[in-house]
C-alpha cells in the first residue's frame, strides 16, 4: 500500500468517528430554529395555517437515487418539502411552466463557462414535450450589467419559442440603472392570470438606496459593489419599495382570497441572511399585503441553492442558478429546508440547473429541480451542504469598510 492509500484508510477511520459526533451536534443546534419559530409566531395568527389545499404531499420525482435514502429521511423529516408537491387550488387546469435564472453571463471573449450552462438549460426547456406554457427568467442574466452580456443572454433565450416573462436581478441593473434591461425585456414588474392562477413578477432589485452619488462612483464601480455578494458598500439593496407594495395591494384587491397566487421575485421574500441580501428589507410589509390570501407561493432566485420555507401562510421555494452555486449562509437556513448535496467544485455542472414546475390535473404544483447531477440533496451530514458547515464560524469582512475601497469584482 502506498502512502496515499495508508492516509486514506486512516482518514476513513477518523471520519467514521467524526460522523457519529456530527449527528449528535446537528441535533443539538437549535438556535436558528428558534428564531424561525419566533418569526412564524409573529406572522401566523392563532389557528392559521397555509390553506389545506396547499398541503405538502410525499410525491417523489425523477431522481430515483433519492429513494434509497427515503426510509431514513422520512424518519427524521417526516415529509419532503424539497420536492414541493403543493396543491395550488381546486379547479386549476393542468399546465407546466419553467424557471431559469442566475446565469451571470460574461462577454464571450472573457468566459464561456456560464454561456455553455445557460445554453444547455435553454435547449432542455425547448426540448420539453409537451412544451411548458411559459418560461420565467428570474434575473441575473448578466454578470456586470454590460449591454454585451445582456444582448448575449437575450440571443440565447431566443431559442425558446414559448412565452417568456422576465424579472431583473441586481447584476442586470446597476450599470445603467436598468435602461438596457427594460429596453430588452420590458417592465420590471407585472401580473397576468393563467388557467386559474394569478402570477405576479416583482422587482426586488431596482430600489436600492443611493450609495454611489456621494462617493462619486463611476457606473462600473457602482455595479462592482452591487455584484459583490459579501460586500457591505451597496448595503441592504434588496427591497420591494412602497410604490410597488401599493401596486401589489391593488393588483391583488380583485383576486379571491382562497385562489392561488404565485409571486416571482429575484430575492426571497423573507429574512434569510441580510448580509448577502438573502431577503428583502421590507419583507414584513410584503407579508402584511399577503396576509388575507391563503394560497401564496413565492418562487425566487438569487440564493443559488435548494431552499424551502414557510412564513405565515406564504410558501417560498428557492431556485437553482445555471451559473454556480452559493454556499448556505452561516445562519438563517430555514429549518424546513432539506439542503442540497455538497457540491464538487471540480464539476462546473454540479449544484446548478433550472426548474420544471407543473400544475397537474390533481391541482398540485410539482417543482422538479433539474440539477445536472444525479444527486440533488445531501442526506448524510458529510454530504450535505448545510451539515458540512456545522463547525464553521465566519466573520464579516474588514477591507470593504474602509474608504476608498475598490476591491469589488472587476
Amino acid at each position, binding site marked *: 500500500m502506498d502512502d496515499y492509500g495508508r492516509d486514506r484508510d486512516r*482518514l476513513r477511520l477518523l471520519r467514521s468517528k467524526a460522523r457519529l459526533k456530527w449527528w449528535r451536534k446537528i441535533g443539538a443546534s437549535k438556535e436558528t430554529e428558534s428564531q424561525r419559530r419566533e418569526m412564524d409566531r409573529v406572522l401566523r395568527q392563532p389557528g392559521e395555517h397555509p390553506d389545506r389545499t396547499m398541503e405538502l404531499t410525499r410525491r417523489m420525482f425523477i431522481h430515483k437515487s433519492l429513494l434509497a435514502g427515503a426510509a431514513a429521511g422520512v424518519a427524521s423529516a417526516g415529509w419532503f418539502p424539497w420536492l414541493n408537491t403543493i396543491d395550488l387550488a381546486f379547479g386549476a387546469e393542468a399546465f407546466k411552466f419553467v424557471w431559469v435564472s442566475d446565469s451571470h453571463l460574461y462577454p464571450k471573449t472573457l468566459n464561456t463557462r456560464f454561456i455553455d450552462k445557460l445554453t444547455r438549460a435553454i435547449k432542455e426547456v425547448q426540448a420539453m414535450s409537451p412544451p411548458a406554457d411559459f418560461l420565467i427568467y428570474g434575473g441575473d442574466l448578466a454578470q456586470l450589467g454590460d449591454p454585451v452580456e445582456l444582448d448575449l443572454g437575450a440571443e440565447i433565450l431566443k431559442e425558446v419559442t414559448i412565452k417568456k416573462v422576465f424579472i431583473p436581478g441586481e447584476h442586470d441593473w446597476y450599470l445603467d440603472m436598468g435602461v438596457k434591461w427594460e429596453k430588452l425585456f420590458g417592465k420590471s414588474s407585472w401580473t397576468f392570470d393563467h388557467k386559474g392562477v394569478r402570477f405576479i413578477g416583482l422587482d426586488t432589485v431596482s430600489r436600492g438606496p443611493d450609495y454611489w452619488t456621494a462617493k462619486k462612483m463611476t457606473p462600473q464601480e457602482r455595479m462592482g459593489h452591487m455584484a459583490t455578494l459579501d460586500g457591505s458598500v451597496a448595503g441592504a439593496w434588496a427591497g420591494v419599495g412602497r410604490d410597488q407594495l401599493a401596486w401589489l395591494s391593488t393588483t391583488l384587491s380583485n383576486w379571491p382570497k382562497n385562489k392561488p397566487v404565485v409571486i416571482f421575485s429575484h430575492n426571497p421574500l423573507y429574512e434569510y441572511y441580510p448580509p448577502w441580501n438573502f431577503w428583502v428589507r421590507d419583507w414584513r410589509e410584503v407579508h402584511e399585503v399577503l396576509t388575507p390570501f391563503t394560497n401564496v407561493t413565492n418562487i425566487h432566485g438569487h440564493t443559488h441553492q435548494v431552499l424551502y420555507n414557510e412564513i405565515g401562510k406564504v410558501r417560498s421555494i428557492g431556485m437553482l442558478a445555471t451559473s454556480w452555486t452559493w*454556499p448556505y449562509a452561516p445562519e438563517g437556513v430555514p429549518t424546513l429546508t432539506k439542503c442540497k448535496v455538497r457540491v*464538487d467544485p471540480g464539476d462546473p455542472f454540479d449544484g446548478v440547473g433550472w426548474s420544471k414546475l407543473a400544475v397537474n390535473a390533481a391541482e398540485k404544483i410539482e417543482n422538479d429541480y433539474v440539477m445536472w447531477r444525479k444527486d440533488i440533496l445531501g442526506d448524510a451530514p458529510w454530504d450535505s451542504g448545510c451539515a458540512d458547515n456545522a463547525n464553521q464560524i*465566519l*466573520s464579516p469582512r474588514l477591507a470593504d469598510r474602509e474608504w476608498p475601497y475598490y*476591491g469589488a*469584482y472587476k
Partner: protein
Amino acid sequence: MKRPRKISTILGASLGLLLVVVSGPNPALAHKAKHTPEQLKAFEQAFLEQVKVGDMLFHGDGATQKRLGVTLSNTGMACAMCHPFASDTHPYTFPKFQEQVSKFATLRDMINWCIEKAAEGEKIEDDSDAMKALETYIYWSNRGSKLDPGRH
C-alpha cells in the same frame, strides 16, 4: 581492540553533548523583555494588513494582483464568487486527504487547485506574499471555528 572503541565512544558522546550545549536554542530568538502595548498593536496591524491584502485578492482586485505579480483568474472570476465571507473554504479541516487533488493536501494546495481549476488562473508560489495573504484572509474569516484537521 576494545579500549580504543570505548574511548572513541566516550569522546564522541562528549563532543555531541558539547555541541548541543553550545548550539542550544538560538539566544537571538529568545524573548527577554515583556511586550509593550505598542508592540502588540504593531503585531496586530501587521496581521490585519495581510487580512486586507488577502481580502482584495480573494475578491479579484486587479491592482493588488498586479502589485504582487499574480493572475488569480483569466476568466473574470474571483474566489469570493463561490466563497462569500470565505465560507466553504474550511481551513480548519486541513491538512487532509483532498479528493480533488487525490493526495494528502494543505490549504495552500487547495488554494492553488481553486486558482487553476475553478478560476482558471495561474498557480502561485507556495511561499509567495500572495499565498500568505490569501491564507491569512481565509484563516481570519474562519477564526473561532474549531480545529478539525483531516475531516472530509
